[in-house]
């Protein structure tokens, strides 16, 4: 599979010079469409790399992405139980990781994030823990599964500039904050659809002012909290037509014309308050928001698997 576009993307890494790397998870019969796509915020396309398999540069269930200080791209693979490393240009460099439950072993590595020292935190989701490695895969630390605050299938992970580790505790419907040594500090949220509540959160990021952004995956929304976990705002998605999509419609009038006469934003009452159904019917809404990332200019990037796109927000306040 070549060319632009994504097929069930699950994460985006913002690399050197603002280049974006979005990984498409695709699906079992369409494994040829697994890939990482390189582009920038102006929709300039730079190519693809990676593919399905177990060899160098290949992966099966790609999930989390991160960029190190040199601009190399790291990608977790839940099925091969490893971390893949690529150059900024998409050339495969190496992979590391072994399946298992002992410290330093991996069972379903999911979200990943670097700290300011260049060490990688991995949400080892089937082991219900977070592990810290050097970027070459040497084990440093494991936490999150040793007391009453045990994680339950954690997905996204984020390390703030001041070294705190935030985890999207998917199975427990909360965000958990640890210090850099893995000591539990506090958690935010509870299961639900109200303000400040979560249903299976998938990703978390914290900006320079301490605002916490959470992809509240089960509620199909992005929630924004202040640094104390107080609710600020909830976004359901506001997608517009991208440059790539626009070009598609330009050359496919048969679809564009009836689309222009369609009501793509029906009343949501008929969907019984089920956000999954709402998003299935209303294209602009988030559907399967799997990760949230921030750039140095304060933009917020939400990768959503089920609509095969990334929605980008700018902070206004």
């Amino acid at each position, binding site marked *: 599979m070549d060319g632009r*576009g994504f097929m*069930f993307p*699950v994460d985006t890494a913002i690399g050197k010079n603002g280049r974006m790397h979005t990984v498409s*998870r*695709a*699906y*079992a*019969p*369409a494994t040829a469409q697994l890939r990482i796509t390189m582009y920038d915020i102006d929709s300039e396309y730079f190519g693809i790399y990676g593919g399905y398999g177990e060899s160098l540069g290949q992966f*099966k*269930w790609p999930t989390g992405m991160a960029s190190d200080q040199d601009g190399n791209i790291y990608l977790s693979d*839940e*099925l091969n139980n490893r971390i893949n490393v690529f150059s900024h240009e998409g050339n495969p460099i190496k992979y590391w990781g072994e399946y298992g439950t002992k410290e330093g072993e991996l069972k379903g590595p999911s979200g990943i994030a670097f700290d300011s020292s260049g060490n990688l935190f991995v949400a080892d989701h089937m082991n219900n823990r977070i592990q810290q490695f050097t970027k070459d895969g040497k084990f440093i630390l494991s936490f999150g599964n040793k007391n009453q605050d045990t994680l339950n299938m954690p*997905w996204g992970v984020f390390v703030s500039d001041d070294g705190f580790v935030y985890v999207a505790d*998917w199975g427990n419907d909360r965000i958990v904050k640890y210090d850099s040594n893995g000591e539990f500090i506090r958690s935010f949220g509870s299961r639900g659809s109200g303000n400040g509540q979560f249903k*299976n959160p*998938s990703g978390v990021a914290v900006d320079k002012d301490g605002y916490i952004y959470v992809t509240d*995956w*089960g509620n199909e929304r992005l929630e924004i909290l202040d640094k104390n976990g107080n609710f600020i705002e909830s976004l359901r998605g506001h*997608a517009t*037509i*991208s440059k*790539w*999509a626009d070009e*598609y*419609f330009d050359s*496919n009038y*048969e*679809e564009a014309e*009836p*689309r222009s*006469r*369609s*009501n*793509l934003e*029906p009343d949501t009452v*008929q969907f019984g308050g089920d956000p*999954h*159904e709402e998003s*299935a*019917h209303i*294209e602009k809404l988030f*559907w*399967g928001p799997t990760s949230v990332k921030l750039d140095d200019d304060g933009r917020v990037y939400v990768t959503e*698997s*089920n*609509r*095969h*796109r990334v929605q980008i927000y700018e902070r206004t306040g």
Partner: protein
Amino acid sequence: METTSTDVKLMAHLLRRAGFGATKEQLDQYISSGYEETVDLLVDNEDSSRIDDALVRRYFPDQSVTHDTSGAGSYWLYRLVSTDSPLREKIALFWHNVFATGYTKVTNGKPMSDQLRMFRNHGLAKLDDLLLELSRDPAMIIWLDNVDNHNGAINENYGRELLELFSMGVGNYSEDDIKECSRAFTGWSIANSDYIKQLAVRNSIMPYGKLAWRYEYKKDDHDDGEKTFLGYKGNFNGEDIIKIICEQPATAKFISRHLYHFFVADEPPVPSWPYKEPQDLAAIAILEKTYFDSGYDIGEMIRVLFNSEFFKSETCHYKKIKSPVELAGNVLRTTEEFKTPNIRISERNSQVTFMGQQLLNPPSVEGWHQGLEWIETGSLAERVNFASQYLGDITKPGVRRIIRNVMDHEGEYISAEACVDKCLDQLGSIQISQYIYNTLVEFAQENGIPSINLLKDKENAAKKISELISLVASVPEFQQS
């Protein structure tokens, strides 16, 4: 050969027909509840399946959106092998065959999955409710072109099949009735119909994946004029037509025969029904009476069916051939390979297709023909290989438990006869002929099972017993229901 009690044989029969089979442990549990209570449990059970949709969606985004026939089919197969409400899935399978809607024309997995969810929720309800839901179902509206059924320019496709294949059967209405029925369903459409039709025809996923579909009644496109249908006159809309259809004795007979065909014994293919009487007219009469007495309640008809002597009779045990989905459901529930979602479900779904039944894609509006038509040279090999491979796979948790149960309480050694008896028992009290029993015992003997010390050489014993289970999975009775 050990004699099996009537209670066990009957419960095993019920669970094969109302669900996807049951292991000995499950059978014991049901038997302790009682037969009629188990029937009630199966019929009255809401969709309380333990399916964790969140986990499926996390691992398989394509199954989250039920992107195409692969994703939607894999998701359904996972439900079939994981559910605690097997009759709900079985009734969805039943209606999927009667109201056969195919992916080839719909080209969108979401409306197909939505239709199945509707079958799950309404498939045991009253027939008029179900037909109303069906007539508003977006996948059906595209499949049978009601989207092109307009005031002043009718498309008869849905009106015709509603009478011919979905309710009354050929010979019970006229061509004029079809036209009047179609007029009544003008305006029963979907939202954004022009755009959706284009996307369906082009099988387009661009630019942001497939949109879900929703029913829309277009009042301006509905023919509100007077109609004459089956001798009744009025300004009928679709609801009125369904009410009249459900009052017809022909509908009672047609639906009764379908239920008998699916749950009791194979009838000839539907097109021959106008010319061939049902094989058991007395049974059909009981179901017809229940249909009217209960106000067209499908759940009540099934309850009466399962409690009837014509269903319980041993003359109909093992007289149906499992469809590929039923066979796979039986095997995969036994192996317990899918206690949680995993990537292999997509491969299993493809294997079911190779056996001759692609979920969400029946071959025509008539659905799949049942009975011997499931068996041909290629599909038989696929079926036997599938069952033997997975039930003989010692790494599967369900297989390991069966082997453990076979070895339990046997001391150091087990005889070939005892081993065969226990394997048959563990797999759901399978009743086989004396000839096949002798063959299995001979195999167990030749494979050295009686000479293996079960306490000292457990792994070798387990391997040999798994080979015996694999052979049991290939016998005709295991392929039958």
